[in-house]
Each structure stands twice: as structure tokens, then as C-alpha cells.
């Protein structure tokens, strides 16, 4: 696990500095939300370190970070959106991640990701209801 001198052998990534708020980019190079939290899987063995299971994105994950009244308000909006679409919280499985850099590249299509739920909701519920929304821009 560790190299000579006790230093970890693999690439080191600072979770807050290098993951939180990073842009998610789908397999076609389209923007797919931002990382708001990281979900770990914790083994029953207390000596086994937690492993990153998924990246969390969207209002629900952001609400956990913010906390307080505003965080609870954001969480209520997320729950409302989730209830309408009968979806689990926005999570991107670690197995869908291709690389970490100035953005985080995914192997998935953004339309298949829950992280894009808010944008889809705005498009379907608000933008599409605007008169003329069905016509292409002239």
C-alpha cells in the first residue's frame, strides 16, 4: 500500500481541492454537472480504508455540504425533483470515471446521469412550456 519511506505508492488526490466543484464532462464532451460530494464504501474491517464508490452531484449533495436552513431548503427541492422522477440521489459510479484533471471525464452519456436532472427538469417543465419553444431559432 505504501512505498519506501511510508509514502503512498499511487497517485495522490486531495478530495476537496481536486474533486469538489470540478466540472463533469460526459463521453461526448458535454457538460454534465459538478461534483458536490464523494461517497465512500466502508469495509467491516476497521483497518481497511474506505474506497471511493461514487461521485455525488446536484442539489441533494450540495445541501449536505452547506447545511443549516439553506441546506435543508435545497434538500427539500431535491426531494421534490426526485419524487417527480422517481430517481435515486444523483450519483455517478466510480466505474464511469475515465480521468481526473482540470475536469473529470466520464464514460457515460450525460442524459443517462442523474447529475443532469436539474437541467432536464428546467428544460421539460419551464423552457418547453414557453410559447415558441418547439421552433428552432431563426
Amino acid at each position, binding site marked *: 500500500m505504501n512505498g519506501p519511506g511510508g509514502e503512498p505508492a499511487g497517485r495522490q*488526490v*486531495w*478530495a476537496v*481541492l481536486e*474533486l469538489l466543484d470540478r466540472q463533469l464532462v460526459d463521453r461526448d464532451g458535454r457538460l454534465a454537472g459538478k461534483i458536490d460530494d*464523494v*461517497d*465512500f464504501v466502508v469495509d467491516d474491517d476497521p483497518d481497511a480504508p474506505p474506497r471511493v464508490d461514487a461521485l455525488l452531484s446536484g442539489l441533494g449533495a450540495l445541501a*449536505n*455540504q452547506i447545511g443549516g436552513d439553506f441546506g435543508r431548503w435545497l434538500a427539500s427541492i431535491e426531494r421534490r425533483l426526485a419524487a417527480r422522477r422517481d430517481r435515486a440521489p444523483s450519483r455517478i459510479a466510480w466505474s464511469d470515471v475515465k480521468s481526473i484533471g482540470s475536469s473529470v471525464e466520464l464514460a457515460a452519456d450525460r442524459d443517462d446521469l442523474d447529475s443532469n436532472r436539474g437541467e432536464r427538469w428546467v428544460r421539460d417543465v419551464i423552457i418547453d412550456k414557453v410559447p415558441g419553444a418547439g421552433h428552432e431559432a431563426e
Partner: protein
Amino acid sequence: MKLSELLGVTVVTTDGEELGRVHDALLVQDGPVGAQGFAGLRLHALAVGTRSFGTKLGYTQGTVKGPWLLRAMFHRPPTLVPWQAIVQRSASRIVVDRRRMDEST
């Protein structure tokens, strides 16, 4: 367990010494390779300290190098608490074994 559940939590030793709060988590990419050929990340250690501003800017972690004046002001190596040193964890407090910390570093 979520990262947000660790950030900001007070860390104390089994002797009662307060080390500060969790400001960041050091992950190491040495896990099993996934479907995309990208290795998994494990939580190696928590960066703990009494000041957070240098951490937010990246000076504490050492990933931001300049300008030299800001580096001199904010670059204080964080106290790294290896995951194996944690003996108790709750929503408001993490208790660590100082001897295990010393053994791991």
C-alpha cells in the same frame, strides 16, 4: 460515508489533545482497475488543522506553489491523520490514537 460527513469534524487524540478540524482528505489511487481502465481511490489520510484558509487555496497541501509571499504565509504542512489511526468516529468528533499516527508516518 460521505466526504461532507468528515469535513469540519473536530479531531482529538485519545489523550484529549485537540488537533483541529478536518479540512481535506488525501486519496490514493492504487485500487482495483475499473471498467474504464482507471484505478480506484482509497482514503489514505485526513488533513487536520486549526486554520483552513491555506487549505482552501491549496497552499497547505503543497499543490499551489506561488506567489512566494502567499506560499510563505499559508504553507504550513497539515497534520495528516492516517485512516488506520482513527479509533472512534461520530458526526461531531473523531478520536485518533497518537501512537498509530506516529507508526503510519
